[in-house]
């Protein structure tokens, strides 16, 4: 239980210490970074085995103080964030030698990780906003890290849209505070439930006004967090920002950031705090389906390897939001499963794209060709990741897509199931294109002398490729129940969340706090 603040504090500390390492000792910085990431991964695994609990910061018990909540969903997200961070940190040192200021990179990198872990753990709306901003600001800076023309352009666009989204989120929180007088998630949830939720049938809605404001707040959250999650039509920053960042950051952004500050935060707010209703569920599903379709259609026409991957991130986020938006137990499980899988194969794809760029210096698919012969590890891992994202068995994407389709069917949403299948086919089309132009076929003459990437980079990719296969095991009943089932319950069982945080006293009648 006392471990929870460490999960945020360790990367935060690393973020401040690493730039202080003298420039000569860059190896030390690499080592420290890897150590930090390893500690984080270990912490997340330890957290996985802990019982659900809360940690009241500064000893102020909820609903007064800020508190961290460890439940199924946050355990799952922590595990994903920390393990993938570790792998990407393994990849970074060799890759980042091309950039000056590696230590600044680490500082921003771990700041972002701290922000994400905070988002996952926090039980307080305003704290959620703060952590989202920590992660976002770090990512704005990281996108523009190379300081080239396009990178700055992407960074600025991302920053403007991201700030608008942040303002929306903050306005939403302010509205909730205005009506409910608290920013503690569990407390808010309790009060909103007491007020009748979004439907507005509760006692505190004499003329429907409170309900209208609540709806406005909900919409602000959907749009603000939807922008962070890059859902169409709030997606436009992503295909610029993700490819422009240095590759490890592309992987972090696409693999983790849009999921934690986007989907996870959205799910937390909508499920645990406001309470999902059929209308909101429809909105989510349509946003998800729209993202799925638009993302894949634009992706298929791309020739820039990383930009193609970025559009696919939009599309895959669509799958996740569609499934979670179903709001059935199976739907949420499927969505979380796909979230885990996407957090594995998308970073892998970005890393392979980065490896190709590292050796050939280009990101244009039509410039490559036959690279399998020269870069077997990159080629093989990229093939595995491509098959995973396209949903070809026996890799993980197949199982989560299957679950999503079954969940859609179970909920009677045939149209969405068809959309999911069509998008899956187009995803396959687009990744066979990647494989065809980049890795298979005859080797171009100019690449005759390239070699495989350094061992640490190759190891990181191989690790993720193994995870692509291993995470298929989440389809089996035991692991599925343990990781995904618990996560799903912690999201959809709203009352349990409230009781976990506030205890069984049922804080709804706690008048002393209402006095303001």
């Amino acid at each position, binding site marked *: 239980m006392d471990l929870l603040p460490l999960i945020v504090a360790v990367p935060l500390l690393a973020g401040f210490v690493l730039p202080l390492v003298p420039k000569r000792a860059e190896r030390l910085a690499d080592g420290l970074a890897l150590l930090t990431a390893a500690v984080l991964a270990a912490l997340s695994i330890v957290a996985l085995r802990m019982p659900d609990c809360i940690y009241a910061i500064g000893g102020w018990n909820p609903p007064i103080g800020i508190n961290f909540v460890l439940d199924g969903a946050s355990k799952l997200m922590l595990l994903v964030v920390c393990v993938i961070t570790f792998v990407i940190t393994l990849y970074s040192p060799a890759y980042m030698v091309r950039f000056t200021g590696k230590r600044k990179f680490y500082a921003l990198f771990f700041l972002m990780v701290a922000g994400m872990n905070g988002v996952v753990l926090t039980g307080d709306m305003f704290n959620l906003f703060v952590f989202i901003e920590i992660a976002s600001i770090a990512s704005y800076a990281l996108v523009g890290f190379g300081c080239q023309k396009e990178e700055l352009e992407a960074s600025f666009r991302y920053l403007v849209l991201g700030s608008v*989204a942040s303002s929306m989120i903050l306005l939403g929180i302010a509205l909730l505070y205005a009506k409910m007088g608290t920013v503690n998630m569990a407390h808010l949830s309790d009060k909103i439930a007491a007020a009748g939720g979004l439907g507005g049938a509760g006692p505190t809605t004499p003329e429907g006004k409170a309900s209208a404001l609540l709806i406005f707040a909900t*919409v602000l959250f*959907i749009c603000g967090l939807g922008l962070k999650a890059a859902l169409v039509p709030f997606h436009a920053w992503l295909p610029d920002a993700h490819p422009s960042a240095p590759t490890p950051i592309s992987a972090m952004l696409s693999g983790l950031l849009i999921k934690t500050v986007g989907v996870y935060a959205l799910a937390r707010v909508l499920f645990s705090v406001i309470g999902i209703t059929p209308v909101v569920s429809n909105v989510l599903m349509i946003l998800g389906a729209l993202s799925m379709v638009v993302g894949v*259609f634009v992706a298929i026409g791309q020739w820039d390897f990383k930009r193609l991957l970025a559009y696919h991130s939009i599309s895959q986020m669509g799958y996740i939001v569609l499934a979670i938006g179903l709001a059935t137990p199976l739907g949420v499980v499927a969505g979380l499963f796909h979230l885990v899988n996407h957090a594995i194969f998308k970073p892998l794809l970005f890393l392979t794209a980065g490896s190709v760029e590292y050796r050939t210096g280009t990101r244009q698919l039509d410039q490559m060709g036959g690279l399998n012969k020269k870069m077997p590890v990159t080629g093989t891992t990229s093939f595995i990741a491509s098959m995973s994202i*396209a949903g070809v068995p026996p890799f993980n994407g197949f199982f989560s*897509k*299957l679950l999503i389709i079954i969940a859609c069917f179970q909920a009677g949403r045939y149209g969405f199931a068809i959309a999911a299948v069509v998008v899956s086919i187009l995803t396959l089309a687009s990744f*066979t294109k990647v494989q*065809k132009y980049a890795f298979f076929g005859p080797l171009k003459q100019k690449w005759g002398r390239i070699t495989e990437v350094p061992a640490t980079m190759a190891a990181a990719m191989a690790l993720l490729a193994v995870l692509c296969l291993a995470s298929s095991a989440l389809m089996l009943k035991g692991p599925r129940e343990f990781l995904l089932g618990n996560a799903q319950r912690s999201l959809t069982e709203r009352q349990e969340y409230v009781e976990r945080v506030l205890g069984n006293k049922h804080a709804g009648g706690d008048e002393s706090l209402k006095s303001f």
Partner: protein
Amino acid sequence: MSLLIWPIALPIIVGALVFCAPRGLAKYLKWFSVVAAATTFGLCITCVAEAPPSWTVNGEVLLALDGLGSLVLLGVGFFSLLMTLYSAGFFKPGDISESYYYGNILLSVGAACGVAVASNLILLALFWGLLGIPLYLLINTGSERGNTVAKKTLLILGGTDSVLLLGIAAFFVSTGSFDMLVKSQVPVVSVAAWFGVICIIIAALAKAGAMPFHTWVPDASETAPVPAVAMLPASLDKLLGIYLLARVFLTMYHIPNSVKIACMLIGAGTIVFAVMAAMMQHNLRRLLGFHAVSQVGYMVLGIATGTAIGVVGGLFHMLNHAIYKSCLFLAAGAAEKRTGETELARMGGLAKVMPLTFVAAVVAAFAISGIPPLNGFASKWMVYNGIIAAKDMGFVWVIVLVAAMFGSALTLASFVKVLHSVFLGQPKEPRQAGKQPGILMLVPMLVLSGLCILLGIFAVRLGVNKIILPALAGIEGIDEAAFNQTLAGSWGSGTATILLIAALIVGLIIYLFSTFTRAREDESYVGGEVGTRAEMYNFEGVEFYKTVGEMPLLKNLYKQADAKWYDLYEQLRRTTFYITGWLRKLHDGVLHTYVTWCVVGLVVILWWLLYSYKILGRAF
């Protein structure tokens, strides 16, 4: 752990080992793989003979073996063994990367066995899709063309796999279980059931290579290594595709007549259009590929009739087709190895130099053309009978029957062309003679052609009674009695065979008499001068059929086919890129556009929520 796991696990594990094998071991890999394939076949036989209990985890049946599964499992094991054997003789060291090739072959064997013994639909889909990966890798062996074709193949197979997932989800919603061996016979009345039937049938048709999902078959046949073609598109994929189709029709769903009619029409269309395309091909492998499509039509047709004899005929044809088509591909491979050519126009006269291959090819070609007493005739005949027995479905049966028979005639026509261009006629300019097919290549060919004859002569006694009917044991309405009932009067196997053999003998006698009269051989003259033999007698088989392509109605059809009008893949590709171009234009890189989207999105969602909660007009 059940015994059923081993036919799947063994080849996959060995395949993985072969993949990782160090370069030094490369020359032993083929023997290693042959042993592995033989062991797998042995395991398949053991599984079928011992009928082991199904493999159950947490109360869910994952692997189980019933009659139909046994048939397919045996077929998979058998063909895999033969093709691996042939591969061992076919490739010289250095032709291919052994670990890559044999690894993929063994992986596909394991996956195919998996499909045959899977009882759980998710597991089936797993192996089903897994089968696409080795095929993709086998086609993709470095050339530009192979690269393109591999992409297309994986896209069609993987795409229809996704459709299969939809079908599985629908089946699950209909029945509440993933077990497909349970005779659920879901009535097709609900939306979910319709989804299930259509989607699973699409997946089955695509795997088997029926129209309109066929385009990968000719392309893959043209580019992949010959043994791999003979193994995957020509035999294993057919077995599995038709297997799933049979499951849908026989156990999973209670198929309504409309679906049956649609499938019959698809089958008939496949037969005719594919064979017409085949006739015009000038590449041997591509031609065989189109025939592989065309023949699927008969299987689909037979099964879609739903009558006892039709289903038996369809399944029997599946088996027969795998036999003769892989034999033809193997013969083509031998010819290709000898001449280094796949273009019909540049081959010829090989009968003299490779007589055994010629014999095998002739037998298989006659079998595919449906000439008695070979197996192709027997199963086609049953399919025709099945069509006639399905009279209650309206007049469709007439169209379908005519199409099927017409297709059979065209098949014969196009194989006359093949035999002429490849084996008969004058040898073309002597190019460096490749290797004669060794014993390893000949044995599979001869075994397969022997089977063509055996299963032809003893079609009912051996093929139907001992192989197909036991496989269909337990399926209502299909047993020996029903089979004989529909067959009685139209064809008794014994008399027909005797009559045919008698006819053959008569033909032989006539031929012998005609050769008694001696003809004088002399130089031929053109305008009083001696014509050179090569110019005079070098008729290319390809030319024979050019006239067909010139016919007024067909001309346009062929021209459009060349322009890929009928290629579903191409059409979808064009549509997709149209939409893509349009959407890309919208992302114009101006910040204001993007902010506008966000604001519009916010307003729309807000309006929608307020509207849904009926607040619009109350508070605002």
